């Protein structure tokens, strides 16, 4: 994704809408930043060279998207914070990503399970955002969607390969899906920010998005000979409100170490 963006003032009709949009852009940006970070941990440790390279491409896409979206968030906020400032100088409680993306990378099956669930959501979300009445968001969606479609193509194929590969790969992927499933509910759990932006036709209806997500995921899992995890199980939430797992704190302390230790330095 091209990081160049206009530095023009973003026009927003009210301060409360500005706050909502800022919050919403943080959610989009933080998801990508944290997921990109987890994927980048595979670099040099992938199961085979070709896949090492593929995962790094996806990680690079997500980090590029995060940079662009958080840059936009900074403009919307209008307080002079750029993407780097938002990334390196916020505490875990101010991060707005899903818990799903902050969980440790696990084995390759876990990474693929998470990636697949996220990529299906991402394609649905970005397709819906193309219609956003907030033009900068529609522009984001147009850029992200192309990458998201490729990500889904990649993770979907791996779900099929692992699900319908060997006994071991099938079991590992099933286990990963069962473990991660409780973190999928939060994706489609709207709060007031989502509802207000939905009223403005700026963001999509999450519940409807969730229905489409579920149908797509079910179809692929079936093709991959995998069981759908118990849909009525307890679902974790809170990431969107800054109530994270302990993993995020460790992730951020690693990521932020240099700018925090040398606040006057340029790198």
């Amino acid at each position, binding site marked *: 994704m091209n990081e160049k963006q206009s530095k023009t003032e973003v026009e927003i009709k009210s301060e409360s809408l500005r706050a909502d949009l800022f919050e919403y852009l943080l959610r989009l940006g933080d998801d990508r930043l944290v997921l990109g970070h987890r994927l980048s941990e595979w670099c040099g440790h992938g199961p085979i060279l070709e896949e090492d390279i593929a995962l790094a491409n996806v990680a690079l896409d997500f980090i590029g998207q995060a940079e662009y979206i958080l840059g936009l968030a900074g403009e919307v906020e209008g307080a002079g914070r750029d993407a780097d400032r938002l990334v390196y100088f916020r505490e875990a409680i101010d991060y707005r990503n899903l818990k799903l993306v902050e969980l440790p990378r696990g084995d390759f099956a876990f990474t693929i399970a998470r990636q697949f669930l996220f990529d299906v959501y991402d394609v649905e979300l970005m397709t819906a955002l193309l219609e956003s009445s907030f033009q900068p968001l529609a522009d984001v969606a147009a850029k992200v969607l192309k990458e998201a479609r490729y990500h889904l193509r990649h993770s979907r194929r791996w779900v099929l390969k692992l699900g*319908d590969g060997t006994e071991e790969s099938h079991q590992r992927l099933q286990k990963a899906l069962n473990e991660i499933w409780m973190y999928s509910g939060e994706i489609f759990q709207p709060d007031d920010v989502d509802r207000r932006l939905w009223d403005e036709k700026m963001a999509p209806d999450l519940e409807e998005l969730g229905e489409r997500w579920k149908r797509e995921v079910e179809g692929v899992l079936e093709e991959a000979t995998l069981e759908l995890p118990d849909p009525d199980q307890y679902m974790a939430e809170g990431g969107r409100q800054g109530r994270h797992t302990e993993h995020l704190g460790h992730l951020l302390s690693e990521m932020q170490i240099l700018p925090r230790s040398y606040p006057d330095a340029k790198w």
Partner: protein
Amino acid sequence: MSESQENKFQERIDQGAKIEPRDWMPERYRKQLIRMISQHAHSEIVGMLPEGNWITRAPSLKRKKILLAKVQDEAGHGLYLYCAAETLGVDRRELIDQLHTGKAKYASIFNYPTLTWADIGVIGWLVDGAAIVNQTMLARCSYGPYSRAMIRICKEENFHKVQGFEIVATMAKGTAAQKKMVQDAVNRWWWPTLMMFGPHDSESANTPELMKWKVKTKSNDELRQRFVNLTVRQANAVGLSIPDPHLEYDPESDDWRFGEIDWEEFWNVIRGNGPCNRERLQTRREAHEEGAWVREAAEAYASKRKAEALKQPA
């Protein structure tokens, strides 16, 4: 393997012809190339680790993307090189086993630790700088697939050294803490980088043969001198010092003469006693072992699909 075949082969080499995989070649040429190309591939793969160590800690999103792309390139270059070696009739799997069992070598430089962010700059500047000097020569080597892989690699790597030098230059004019960090990194990496060119010509057993076959066209000492000349001037441009009290300009030859390399350290690291040898190898083994079930799954899935396709009438 008649003598006339060998003579004809040498004649072709002397005329500057490229040797292709299916051409006749002396067994020894094949062996030397497999050794050299796979060693080179292993170096790219192990070389991902010291720099990969800083991807999650890069100090800005821009630096993070650059570093990730660079380390990914190393995987790509390892991949190209393994494929070039495979044209000589050896499997990548075999080559990887040789790395993991310690039978094959890789560049010793990657057995040194990356202690601060400045190391990322200095590796790009010095280590990639040294690699470019070497690789530009190898792009002209007599074996077609190796030469083509090197041409692609050189093209893709253009940015590796420059991004490193940019980090170094930025830190060198930064805060006192940054300056200290970057000078320290230069002090640690300078001598190991000079060792990358290999032993002195007089000690290098393989060089005469490789030069006769135009696998190499310049000797270790020539390349090393070229690198020192280039780098001393760059260090001067950013105000960093080279940790060598014997460094002296020779106006006759326009060369920077440098002090004696600690060859004992060189051989020690090669023998496996460098600061990170064990760790690096262990990490590679683990990644490979933990990936085995993934590779098997993809293969099993592919054969199932193939079997299905055969069953169905077209």
